[in-house]
């Protein structure tokens, strides 16, 4: 086999040269070893890699055992070759050419993969430095920064609903229901929550001081400057700490000379004794008075606790008619109002009538008069007997026979009319005598004033009872319900053993406590034997359980000012900026007793107007 081999070599200048040599061999051995007919450098080429043969004009290549060649990119162990085929062997490419005359085979080869610079190849396989692609400072900075802006700014801004990430903290429990609606309070950009935003709901929130004092720094302050939201569910927005109040109230007199309030900075250590709203004249509003041992009230009513609570009374009414003697509980008369703050006013019909019946004629079935103006009572009694006459229903044996035997419906003759008038008057007189003379009726509780009634007859002295003694505070009986009444009102619960019945001491009695205003004058157990006694406890009684706001860890209740004194007082009118000021009815200053109650005089007409119809026990 004659074969022409052409090597194409590239000079360093880049110029290609052809080097021809001719061989006459049985077969052309190709490999890395120097003993090959065609020896090619490169460790990827086997020592004896392949053999090229030619027989009958057909050229073929055959790889040695375990080796392969790539013919025109196809990897094979051996195959026939055609002119133009390219055989890839290591870094070399062998190309089969059309043989020239006198040759069986023509082969051209060239090193097509340049013998790489080892260092360059090493550098290509070497990757040093941890910052690559996104994982390098600059791209990562942009990515993280933009991600934060997108997730926590752009998306909430565009889609609103995701604004929970902007919520700096849970809102207080009272506002929790609008927590997801930011716009409920934050009505505009970059202007904060304005007072009008708060007052859209809290429209009747009151001023702190009367408008006349013009305390703009309080009444026109931003709500949000004191009531800080978003600090947790259980934060009390109204609790600003006593320090807030004492900023002004510790030396209020110096700041506000016209004030009548006394300085206070801490309930436990710096709080004046209570001033009480005391009735000194039942026809006039109560007066706010300092408490002295001599202070008494003058209500116009004769009443004492000892006879009602401290001594056993007939249980006829109390126990449902059993008649056994027993002690009256405080709650028999003193019942908290629906709000639990104060006691309901004492009313004859509700609290007295069961025992003190206003019956006036034992001869007829039990008949009661209404309680109230004696002139009205007289007119009612007179009317009642007159009806009997007209109805021909006079059964009184002392009545004139002509009245007793009258036919119902007939017209009274002048004579009969005169008889009737006298008889009715005698009955009215008899009824009045019962009321004024018999124990347990009018004169027991009321001072009689002959000739002072509106009809010129017997009248009673005016009466006014106090229910709100400390109007400046929001004391709540309901929140003190676990304690016996006598814990704070000891003089009302003095026990006077009943020798007749030998009843056991009631559980609520507390004979050795010192009551307010009755400081153990004679070394005896104090008690209330007069209606003039004031049984409202002193601040010392409160301090047995209540400490100043700053006290922590003690057994007493830390008591901030706001526990008893509301900052916003509706009676002073609504805060400026309230939509209520636009003329809605709720803007009218509201003097309900749960704000600052007005004097009892304002309530007296309501009590007097209450009408309880005459009733007959059937």
């Amino acid at each position, binding site marked *: 086999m004659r074969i022409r081999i052409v090597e194409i070599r590239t000079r360093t200048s880049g110029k290609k040269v052809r080097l021809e040599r001719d061989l006459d061999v049985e077969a052309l051995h190709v490999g890395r070893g120097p003993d090959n007919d065609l020896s090619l450098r490169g460790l990827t080429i086997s020592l004896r890699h392949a053999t090229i043969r030619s027989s009958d004009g057909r050229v073929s290549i055959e790889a040695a055992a375990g080796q392969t060649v790539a013919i025109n990119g196809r990897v094979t162990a051996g195959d026939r070759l055609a002119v133009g085929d390219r055989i890839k062997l290591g870094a070399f490419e062998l190309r089969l050419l059309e043989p020239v005359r006198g040759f069986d085979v023509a082969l051209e080869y060239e090193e097509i993969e340049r013998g790489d610079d080892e260092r360059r190849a090493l550098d290509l396989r070497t990757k040093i430095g941890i910052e690559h692609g996104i994982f390098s400072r600059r791209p990562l900075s942009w990515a993280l920064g933009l991600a934060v802006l997108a997730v*926590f700014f752009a998306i909430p801004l565009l889609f609103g609903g995701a604004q929970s990430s902007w919520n700096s903290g849970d809102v207080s429990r009272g506002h929790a229901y609008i927590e997801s609606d930011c716009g409920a309070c934050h009505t505009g950009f970059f202007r904060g929550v304005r007072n009008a935003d708060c007052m859209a709901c809290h429209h009747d929130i009151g001023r702190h001081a009367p408008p006349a004092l013009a305390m703009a720094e309080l009444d026109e302050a931003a709500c949000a400057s004191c009531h800080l939201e978003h600090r947790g569910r259980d934060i009390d927005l109204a609790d600003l700490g006593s320090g807030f109040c004492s900023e002004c109230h510790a030396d209020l007199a110096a700041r506000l000379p016209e004030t009548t309030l006394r300085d206070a900075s801490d309930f436990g250590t710096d709080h004046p004794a209570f001033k009480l709203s005391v009735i000194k004249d039942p026809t006039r509003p109560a007066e706010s008075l300092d408490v002295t041992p001599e202070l008494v009230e003058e209500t116009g009513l004769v009443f004492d606790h000892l006879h009602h609570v401290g001594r056993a009374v007939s249980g006829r009414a109390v126990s449902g008619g059993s008649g056994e003697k027993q002690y009256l509980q405080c709650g028999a008369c003193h019942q908290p109002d629906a709000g639990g703050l104060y006691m309901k006013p004492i009313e004859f019909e509700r609290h007295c009538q069961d025992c003190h019946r206003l019956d006036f004629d034992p001869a007829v079935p039990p008949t009661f008069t209404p309680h109230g103006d004696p002139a009205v009572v007289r007119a009612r009694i007179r009317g009642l007997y007159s009806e009997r006459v007209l109805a021909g229903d006079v059964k009184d044996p002392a009545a004139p026979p002509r009245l007793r035997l009258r036919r119902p419906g007939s017209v009274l003759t002048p004579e009969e009319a005169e008889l009737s008038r006298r008889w009715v008057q005698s009955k009215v007189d008899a009824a009045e005598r019962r009321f004024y003379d018999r124990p347990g009726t009018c004169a027991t509780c009321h001072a009689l004033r002959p000739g002072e009634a509106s009809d010129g007859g017997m009248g009673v002295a005016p009466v006014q009872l106090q229910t709100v003694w400390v109007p400046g505070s929001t004391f709540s009986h309901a929140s003190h319900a676990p304690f016996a009444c006598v814990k704070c009102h000891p003089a009302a619960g003095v026990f006077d053993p009943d020798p007749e019945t030998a009843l056991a001491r009631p559980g609520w009695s507390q004979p050795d406590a010192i009551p307010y205003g009755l400081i153990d004058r004679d070394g005896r157990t104090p008690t209330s034997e007069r209606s003039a006694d004031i049984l409202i406890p002193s601040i010392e009684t409160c301090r047995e359980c209540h400490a100043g706001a700053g006290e922590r860890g003690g057994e007493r209740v830390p008591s901030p000012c706001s526990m008893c004194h509301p900052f916003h007082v509706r009676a002073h009118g609504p805060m400026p900026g309230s939509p209520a000021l636009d003329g809605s009815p709720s803007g009218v200053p509201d003097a309900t007793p749960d704000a600052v109650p007005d004097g009892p005089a304002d309530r007296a007409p309501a009590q007097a107007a209450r009408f309880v119809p005459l009733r007959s026990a059937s």
Partner: protein
Amino acid sequence: MIGPRSFLEYARYRYLKVSLVLLLASMAIYLVEDPPGGRSGSSWTGYGLGTLAALMIVWLMWLGLRKRSYRDVGAPLQGWTSAHVYLGTSLLLLVPLHCAFEFGVNVHTLAYALMCGVIATGIVGVGVYALVPTSITRNRNNTTLDALLERIAEIDADCRVAAENLPDLHAKAVITSIEETRIGGSLTAQLAGRDPACGTTRALRSLRGSEIDLQGDARLQELKLIELVARKELLVNQIRRDVRLKGLLDLWLVLHVPLAFATVAALLVHVFVVFWYH
């Protein structure tokens, strides 16, 4: 390279003292003020400390930028680094004082959390700067990375020559050693400091385990090849240790800087939301 002791102790701990004074003053103001409604980020103290902290963050980032530019450095580089480290760390307490220790699941606390990440990576950075440079110097042993790579390239070339007339097993081992030896690579590969599948190690194992009984020149040639590949393995592992140490030196910074930018982004949202909804 700045020695860590030098910048931590700079000017007799001047910036440590500055930071401590700043923190003590902030704590005093925080404890003294008892605003209505209790302490919070929106009290005057809260606004004041928040503004201070925000300005410090911006300034510290500028410092970070500043201390990398070696030209035109107004103050000594150590001073900038010292201030950066101490004032930055003080934010860890300054910011909780600003918000009166109120945290929640929201963008405001996210800003603080990201800032904590920045500070934590920064503290790691200080530790890394204290330990790693010495190790790098010791590992390099008075040479450079480039020189080491150059020597490996030379060995590779020598191996090709040495294996030229040796059996295919040897040729294949050399090819493996050259082409399948990777230095560095992925983050984990760089930080690992070694490669269990290293081509050089496999080539060495294959050569040493060869059962081909060579004689004469071929045997000498084989021994020379084994020595070359063994030397290459030592060099490759030396470079891998170097890569690992440099990776450690850079890793904290790759987290530190992007976290700082994320902190600023969260801070911007925080400030916007706070003033929008103040």
